[in-house]
């Protein structure tokens, strides 16, 4: 394992900021993994740090294939994480809305540029991602749909679902999309939670990444079998929004299989505790996403079903 400095910057009053990369093996730049780009992506950084631990051990045991290189960047934003912020401490900008970056631009454009300069040379890219809705997802791999179909290798993860998402305008400034434009096969892996560590989901996620590395021919080791992934498109989803506001008293979580007519959540009056509304499943389905805060506003996405 080699530890490299990818980006450094002085700050007015804090210690110098560094982004580190951990490099395993040597040769063709084959897989790059990026952990936390936002300060609350603690689960994502946890998974990445465990990958560094596992790959360090595998390298010591000679289990990394000759002639390939794996890069892991566990964190690109500890300046935010150390002070409990999601976005860049100074201007609240999101590093993952700055790709491909600009080395003469604003601070977060420079960070994105330094990251992308390093990352764009790899054949496969794996980003441990979080989403702009707070809630829990079934662990899954997400692909931004472009001209090249990369679902075949997405099955290497053995995750239950692969979501092939049509790009929206904001995707064009994110890492995943830019990786693809630069011909890296890019996968966003959703590890269940964001700001809190969910150990089973974290372990499931790092095992999936190890499985990917093995299937892609980068490791010679035994891996546990995974799922036969189901490929989802935008039209496979049905969003259930709340018709009321109040306490969100959830009966079902992401990953649950539910029957038509089954109660998914109640919304309770925040003053007297009475039931203001109930959300039922309109069909037999699996819960892909569930709102996981204890309060809910009207018209908010409470569940996404597949």
């Amino acid at each position, binding site marked *: 394992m080699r530890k490299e400095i990818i980006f450094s910057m002085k700050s007015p009053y804090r210690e110098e900021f560094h982004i580190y990369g951990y490099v395993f093996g040597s040769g063709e730049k084959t897989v790059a993994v990026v952990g936390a780009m936002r300060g609350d992506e603690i689960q994502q950084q946890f998974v990445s740090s465990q990958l560094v631990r596992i790959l360090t051990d595998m390298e010591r045991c000679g289990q990394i294939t000759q002639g390939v290189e794996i890069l892991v960047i566990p964190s690109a934003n500890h300046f935010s994480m150390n002070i409990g912020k999601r976005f860049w401490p100074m201007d609240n900008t999101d590093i993952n809305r700055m790709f491909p970056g600009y080395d003469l631009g604003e601070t977060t454009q420079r960070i994105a540029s330094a990251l992308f300069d390093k990352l764009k040379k790899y054949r496969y890219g794996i980003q441990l991602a979080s989403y702009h809705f707070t809630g829990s997802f079934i662990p899954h791999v997400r692909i931004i749909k472009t001209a090249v179909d990369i679902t075949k290798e997405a099955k290497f993860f053995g995750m239950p679902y692969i979501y092939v998402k049509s790009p929206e*305008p904001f995707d064009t400034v994110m890492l995943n999309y830019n990786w693809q434009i630069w011909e890296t096969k890019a996968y966003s892996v959703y590890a269940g939670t964001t700001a809190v560590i969910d150990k089973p989901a974290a372990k499931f996620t790092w095992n999936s990444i190890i499985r990917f590395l093995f299937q892609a021919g980068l490791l010679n080791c035994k891996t546990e079998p995974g799922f036969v992934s189901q490929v989802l498109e935008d039209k496979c989803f049905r969003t259930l929004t709340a018709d009321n506001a109040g306490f969100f008293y959830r009966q079902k979580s992401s990953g649950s299989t539910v029957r038509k007519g089954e109660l998914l959540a109640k919304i309770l009056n925040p003053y007297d505790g009475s039931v203001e509304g109930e959300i039922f499943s309109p069909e037999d389905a699996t819960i892909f996403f569930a709102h996981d805060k204890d309060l809910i506003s*009207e018209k908010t996405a409470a569940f996404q079903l597949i």
Partner: protein
Amino acid sequence: MIKTVFSASLPIDEKLIIQKNQIQGAFPGKRLCIVTGTHGDELEGQYVCFLLSEFLNKNTDKICGTIDIYPAVNPLGIDSITRGMPGFDLDMNRIFPGAKDTSLSDYAAYSIVEDIKTADYAVDIHASNIFLREIPQARINVDSASALTGLAEMLNIDLIWIHPAATVLESTLAHTLNSLGVKTIVIETGVGMRITPVYGQRLFNGIINLMHKTGMWLGKAPENISKPIIAATDAVSFVNAVDSGIFLPEKEYGVMLKKGDKIGQIVKPLSGEILSEVFSPDDGLLMTIRAYPVVYEGSLLARVIHNS
């Protein structure tokens, strides 16, 4: 007349309400929408909306058509000094045209577009953020420059900045409205979290002038409307910080500079060092100057439009 454009219950005893003031002229005519407050920390538009509501309410007999004033597209943001929608990650100006039945923010965006989309004109007033001071300007996508420049010139501003098209900007309110046939001008002016009264007055005059020129205003035409510089992106030089520290500006925005003129310096208060001096890269107009003193490497300090 005050009308509600969107309403949704928040968890406890409160609704998120987006409202507008609809001012109906005595005579039929076009419909103009004045929109501001998408970014909750940009307040320059508040003063413009106040001036317009107050003035137009008293002068409906001189108005042909309808003026809709939306002072707070993001009311929770304005009331809580939050740039975005509190509790929601994305910039509200990156989610248009929005959608029904997906999320609260999408639904709000959708409702705003539905309400405005039959208008003839819209002016979307942004301020700069808290970091920069800007001279009053319109920002126009190069693809719509021919359709919009004439309208922007009516608004009594100093600059029209024609910027390149970018996919990410297709989800702005202005892009959405323009693609629906509402001629929409984006204004950037002043600084975040503050009101610059002189610029508010100028925009007020500019909007009355636009109404006059489009046949919506029968009263006296405003005088001394400023003729803006029209600049493409390659006419604008950016000056970014090369050190992290405290920026002390030495020039006011809006002044003409010579190449090499000192704009300011970055200092280190702990040791008393001057870390770097900042000079103008060109002869030209200082359109932007850093307002917030703390800077990191890369922070934007100034923009200069070169003479030509």
